[in-house]
């Protein structure tokens, strides 16, 4: 109250009064301190991002230095001879995430279209809520379900069937383990489904109603309205949503670690056990006996950070652009 009508409060309300003569401005230290500390904590967030890159890079440096390019091109993972190459885990990460995107994209777009264009409001609310609940389940619970429900089901019914029907493809050959690349892909698909579908829903909602009405007035059927009026304008937004889903799939750890089987090997078959960048870190941090082993694990973490960082940046820029149009 002591600062009644001092000019700093007036400055705060109207920028015009900045032009007032400078002599009369009192500095309000409380305000300065407040604004300064808020700014510091906000900047702290940016600093943390930089610090993550620096500390991981620093810790992983011995591995990068020792192996050079062979760190990403070699298939070796031999703690005894201290030879480490990340190619199999990079392959595992890419294939499992790609599988997840392949399954989740059509499903998510379908759900989003169903919820925004077809379903009555009540149904849309309930189903939308249920799909979002999928995102709330902790990763370790998905893993538990994956071990005891999904993997046995894959082993006894899905994989033998796939082997019979599509067995001529190298993708579906080999013994059905249950745990393996396919299980990881499916569980990742379930986990990214709510992300992709709720983002696509937002994109569809942002499309002007007039566009739909125009299509209806021209005699389009319901599906034609969706295809011509909605999906067409939503393209870049959908791509952004899918890439954001990809970013989540690449770094998902626990559920994948529990169902992928954790073998450091490249195998064409989707039934075979594999491992991903995140799963190998979760699995081996405790067994890392030598410094170079730990540095290699952190090095994989550094690569994963860089990849998810760039993918998420791209996706957000796409979504921002999609929102503006």
């Amino acid at each position, binding site marked *: 109250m002591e600062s009644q009508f001092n000019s700093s409060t007036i400055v705060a309300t109207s920028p015009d009064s900045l032009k007032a003569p400078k002599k009369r401005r009192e500095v309000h230290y409380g305000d300065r301190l407040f604004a300064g500390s808020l700014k510091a904590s906000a900047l702290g967030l940016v600093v943390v991002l930089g610090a993550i890159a620096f500390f991981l890079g620093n810790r992983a440096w011995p591995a990068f230095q020792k192996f050079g390019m062979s760190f990403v091109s070699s298939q070796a993972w031999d703690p005894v001879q201290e030879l480490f190459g990340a190619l199999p885990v990079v392959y595992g990460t890419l294939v499992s995430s790609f599988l997840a995107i392949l399954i989740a994209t059509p499903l998510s777009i379908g759900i989003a279209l169903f919820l925004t264009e077809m379903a009555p409001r009540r149904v849309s609310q309930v189903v939308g809520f249920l799909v979002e609940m999928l995102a709330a389940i902790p990763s370790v619970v998905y893993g538990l379900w994956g071990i005891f429900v999904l993997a046995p089901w894959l082993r006894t019914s899905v994989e033998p069937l796939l082997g019979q029907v599509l067995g001529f493809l190298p993708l579906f050959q080999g013994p059905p383990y249950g745990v393996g690349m396919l299980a990881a892909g499916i569980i990742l698909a379930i986990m990214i489904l709510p992300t992709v579908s709720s983002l696509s829903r937002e994109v569809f909602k942002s499309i002007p109603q007039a566009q739909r009405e125009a299509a209806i007035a*021209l005699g389009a059927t319901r599906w034609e309205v969706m295809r011509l009026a909605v999906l067409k304008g939503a393209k870049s937004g959908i791509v952004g949503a899918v890439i954001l889903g990809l970013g989540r799939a690449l770094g998902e750890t626990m559920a994948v670690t529990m169902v992928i089987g954790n073998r450091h090997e490249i195998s064409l078959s989707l039934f075979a056990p594999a491992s991903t960048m995140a799963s190998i870190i979760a699995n081996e941090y405790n067994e890392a006996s030598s410094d170079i082993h730990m540095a290699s694990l952190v090095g994989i973490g550094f690569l*994963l950070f860089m990849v*998810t960082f760039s993918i998420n940046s791209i996706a957000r820029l796409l979504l921002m652009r999609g929102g503006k149009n």
Partner: protein
Amino acid sequence: MRRRFSDTAFRGYGRRKLVNFVMCCLLSLAALGAIIPLFSVFGYVLSQGMPALNLSFFTELPKPVGESGGGMAHSLLGTCVLVFLGSIFGIPWGIATGMYLSEYGRGRLGGAVRFSADLLGSIPSIILGLFVYTLVVVTMKRFSAVAGGLALGLIMVPTVARSTEELLKLVPSHIREAGLALGLPRWKVSLRIVLKGIRGPITTGLMLAIARAAGETAPLLFTAFNNRFWSFELDQPISSLPVQIYTFAISPYEEWHRQAWAGAFLLVSVVFSLNLFTRVVFRQLRKD
């Protein structure tokens, strides 16, 4: 676009109707297909976890292999400790950042901070764990509850910041102006009027962030590690519910699997009820 429309319009109407019907069926099936895994997960957690949950689960330590019974009392306490530490660290930071974004963050810097918050929120949680490992665990030369709390705090900051920002923006600017017109300094207006006026919904947002952090496993593996016994010291490894579920789930023992399901049931019910509660609160807020 006009040409495409006339193209489709001249094709047979019957065929267009058929395509329409098939696509609508497929879309409905997609929605149904997404709900099946939810019900499957929920059903198994309920049917396997509920019978395994009993009083000793909340009061006892795990029994050695071969003996039945026992519980996860130490993990429950551990999760509470870790989430508490994470909150001390993450909530003030998150709220301050959210406040900066809503009250001062209109310019370029605000945009950059918002972008970083979104990026930090979408970085895999295991990377944040690895970061805290290199920063704290390597320096202290041991796993500790503090390191685990720090990792959980880092996970909470972006969520808290963005939800606080959204909620503060809901406060109409005439309320701020009224405060300033009374001659209050800006910090008093921000803290005592704006923040206080919307503290209910903000608390709800915090609970959502806490629920998310409570279910995290990956960042705790190499920060808080795990502990088979009670742990009351903050510089010692500590057990947590998700890590204990993970440890038991990948073990070969039937009895431990039962315990894992019981833990999962507990975790899922807490997370679900918090989510439901939040939804109700936010819906009310939108109505007002």
